[in-house]
């Protein structure tokens, strides 16, 4: 293991080499970077709709239709508190992620900030955490959302 100050310097150099010019400028000025994503998060919608999918065939069978409707209503009512926030996030056209080495990424959408209780399983220097969060959010956002229980 090398001294923390050296590890920090190495991580900073690595991070700077992996940022875009705009991100580098923002990180130097504020110690954080912003990533803006557009469009529907289909992975969330499809995963939530898959929950009710097993009930749908019941609706096609006349004998089971009433039971199907009742079951569907129960599931929808039970899951509504979870669905409202998840669907709201999934259909937001513009999502801004704020990434710093101090905490997990913060999502700003529809005028509110959402904080997630997610961490790396290994200890990393702050600049490495910024790089790793950036990679996840930019290149594998559904993986992050799944771990954060949004999906």
């Amino acid at each position, binding site marked *: 293991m090398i001294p923390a100050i050296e*590890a920090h*310097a190495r*991580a900073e150099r690595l991070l700077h080499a992996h940022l875009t010019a705009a991100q580098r400028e923002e990180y130097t000025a504020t110690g954080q970077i912003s990533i803006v994503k557009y469009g529907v998060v289909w992975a969330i919608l499809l995963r939530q709709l898959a929950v009710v999918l097993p009930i749908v065939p019941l609706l096609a069978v006349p004998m089971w239709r009433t039971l199907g409707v009742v079951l569907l209503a129960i599931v929808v009512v039970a899951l509504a508190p979870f669905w409202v926030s998840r669907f709201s996030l999934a259909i937001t056209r513009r999502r801004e992620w704020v990434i710093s080495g101090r905490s*997990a990424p913060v999502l700003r959408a529809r005028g509110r900030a959402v904080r997630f209780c997610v961490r790396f399983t290994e200890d990393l220097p702050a600049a490495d955490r910024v790089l*790793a969060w950036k*990679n996840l959010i930019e*290149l594998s956002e559904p993986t992050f959302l799944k771990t954060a229980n949004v999906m």
Partner: protein
Amino acid sequence: MAVLRVLNVNGDDRVEWDPEVADDRMRRARALFDAKLRAGWFAFEADREGGGSQIRTFDPKKDEIVLQPPIAGG
């Protein structure tokens, strides 16, 4: 030279190899890559413009691969 970077408490550890030579260094990089992904780590190919893509198989022709630890919580 190609490089595999493993993010850790030291900043990162590096394994370098020549993409044109299938030697011990390349085998070591491949073995490390496979072992980390089996343990739930993520691999990203980095490009020169600050972007890249997630990868799930080792490609010795990639210039730079970053391995980072799994995430937990929720």
